[in-house]
């Protein structure tokens, strides 16, 4: 089950004897008594596109900077290819970073920026020239080599920053919010280019982002972080479909939560404001324990008539508000007891009107499959 949601059949973490490229072992790092990274352990595998996702201040950037060598962990080890990185200064780590601000050298032209890292290695001029030219071609920057960074657009600068960190062929490429400075449309295009590039080069990427759709699009696995701790590490689909806690369920996407007690058979939640809610799978917890039933808005169907089949969860509700988003409409609903819910309906048909109007009495149904039972 650990390969659930893995893209492109790539799931080295599901291997019974995994050999990690990067091992983070119980790393802690505090600033002025506050733990930015708190006793965190994590394995990242060769060829993986790994995302560190979390709200600002969750410690994701501190973790990334610790891997690059700009922060020294207070405790714990960071091991790359079996080598403890602690005594290795940033300039000798086989790791490169793409900075959020890009940090291009303003006094050097694009070619010189990209060649900077290769010159430090003392490579022959011809090889440097060749590798810089290859990189310019790969990132479609051929005609911009002689320009200075400030003469480029934001998207072009982003590519130069990427080229500069890729040209050294790092064992691990760290990307700190690499697309944050781009406008929305360009960001979407660049995400796919980034994925393609990573697959073509077969490199290992670790990206830091606060944008969940970016993490979902790009990553093979996502580590969701909060206050210096890992909340869940899993492929995007697993994070979304099987969050392990209310916090993750709520952080990734929208969710309706119902507090209740676990039934004796372990497969439904009793005593919620919506009554008894059935789930598909058994939950590993004591019957009667406090649990939460979670359901994503888009898994809920809205109908004017009560359902006929008895298996699905269903409850009566009143439409409070409708948000039309184009591709879908978001319904705000009120159920008995005044609790608010959200349901999202894809606008598949022609615009012939809404499924239900304001203040209308409707029935909400969703299958037991769509009900996630959370124990924390």
């Amino acid at each position, binding site marked *: 089950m650990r390969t659930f949601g893995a893209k492109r059949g790539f799931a080295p973490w599901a291997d019974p004897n995994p050999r990690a490229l990067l091992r983070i072992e119980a790393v802690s790092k505090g600033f002025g008594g506050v733990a930015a990274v708190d006793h965190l352990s994590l394995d990242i595998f060769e060829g993986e596109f790994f995302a560190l996702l979390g709200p600002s201040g969750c410690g994701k950037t501190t973790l990334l900077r610790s891997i690059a060598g700009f922060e020294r962990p207070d405790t714990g080890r960071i091991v790359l290819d079996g080598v403890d990185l602690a005594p290795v200064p940033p*300039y000798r780590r086989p790791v490169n970073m793409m900075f959020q601000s890009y940090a291009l050298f303003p006094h050097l032209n694009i070619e010189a920026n990209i060649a900077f*890292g290769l010159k430090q290695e003392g490579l022959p001029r011809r090889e440097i020239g060749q590798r810089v030219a290859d990189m310019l071609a790969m990132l479609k920057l051929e005609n911009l080599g002689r320009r200075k960074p400030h003469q480029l657009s934001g998207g072009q600068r982003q590519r130069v920053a990427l080229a500069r960190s890729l040209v050294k062929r790092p064992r691990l490429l760290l990307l700190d919010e690499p697309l944050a400075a781009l406008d929305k449309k360009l960001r979407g295009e660049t995400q796919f280019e980034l994925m393609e590039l990573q697959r073509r080069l077969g490199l290992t990427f670790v990206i830091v982002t606060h944008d969940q759709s970016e993490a979902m699009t790009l990553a093979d696995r996502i580590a969701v972080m909060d206050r210096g701790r890992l909340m869940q590490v899993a492929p995007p689909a697993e994070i979304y479909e099987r969050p392990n806690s209310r916090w993750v369920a709520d952080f990734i996407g929208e969710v309706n939560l119902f507090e209740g007690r676990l039934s004796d058979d372990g497969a439904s939640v009793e005593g919620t404001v919506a009554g008894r809610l059935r789930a598909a799978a058994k939950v590993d917890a004591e019957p009667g324990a406090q649990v939460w039933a979670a359901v994503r808005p888009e898994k809920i169907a809205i109908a004017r008539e009560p359902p006929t089949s008895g298996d699905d969860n269903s409850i009566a509700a009143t439409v409070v508000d409708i948000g039309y988003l184009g591709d879908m409409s978001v319904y705000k609903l009120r159920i008995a007891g005044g609790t608010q819910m959200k349901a999202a309906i894809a606008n598949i048909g022609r615009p012939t009107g809404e499924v239900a109007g304001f203040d209308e009495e409707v029935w909400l149904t969703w299958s037991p499959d769509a009900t996630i039972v959370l124990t924390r």
Partner: protein
Amino acid sequence: MKRQRGESFWGMLVVRIPYAWLLAFFLIPFLIVLKMSLSQTAIAQPPYTPVLDLAAGWHGIAAFFSALSFDNYVLLGSDPLYLLSYLKSVEIAAFSTLILLLIGYPIAYAIARTPRRWHAVLVVLTVLPFWTSLLIRIYAWMNILERDGPLNKVLVALGLVSKPPAWLATDTATYIGIIYSYLPFMVLPLYAILEKMDETLLEAAADLGCRRWRAFWRVTFPLSASGVLAGALLCFIPIVGEFVIPDLLGGSQSPMIGQTIWTEFFGNKDWPAASAVAVVLVCVLVTPILFYQHQAMRMARRD
């Protein structure tokens, strides 16, 4: 865009006030000095001829211009004293500027790298000496550098010298005085540019395999070049014309150009010769430097 008359009038006035200032207090005096340098010395009041006599009408003006000559400039070429004096000034200014850069850069760098809340305090400390008159500070140095002054006492007490050396009336004393006095002029422009430096650039350099020292030379120093240029010019140009410091601390055997001008003016009462020395200083030394700086700044802006 439509602009109202009144606005444009006041706008133009604000722009022109600095130019009017430069015209009245720099260009016109310079033209007077230029005219003086083309005159002949005389025992009179003012001590040179010709004097423009507008009352004599057109003849007066014609006579005035026909009396002007380049004799003083010929004199500058014929007596090596002047050339040596220029060279001495350039030598002292060049070495002082270099030493100032070597001392000032680390100071500016250190201020820029301390936590931001200390910056204001450190900058004020840098300019604190300006709160005392330059003359008083130089007199203080005369005291310090005396044969039985504090410096020699310390040196003897530490056993660094057996016999107290003479500091005053040497080039060393001139250098000490100049470097002490001009240090803030070097530190401030450098601080201004280093303080704005983006530290992630150094992280990027380290990330790309650059050690700290190398990153300094490849990234920090090139990016601070305009500050280095500004600081160097701010020191070099006034040091070339410096008079008080070499006169009070330095020797008299090879005077700097400021001392030469002073001697011509007040010692020899030869205003025209003194003016010629000053004009050559401005035209040969200062103007080309300022022109070069102007070009360099324009290049920097265009980049």
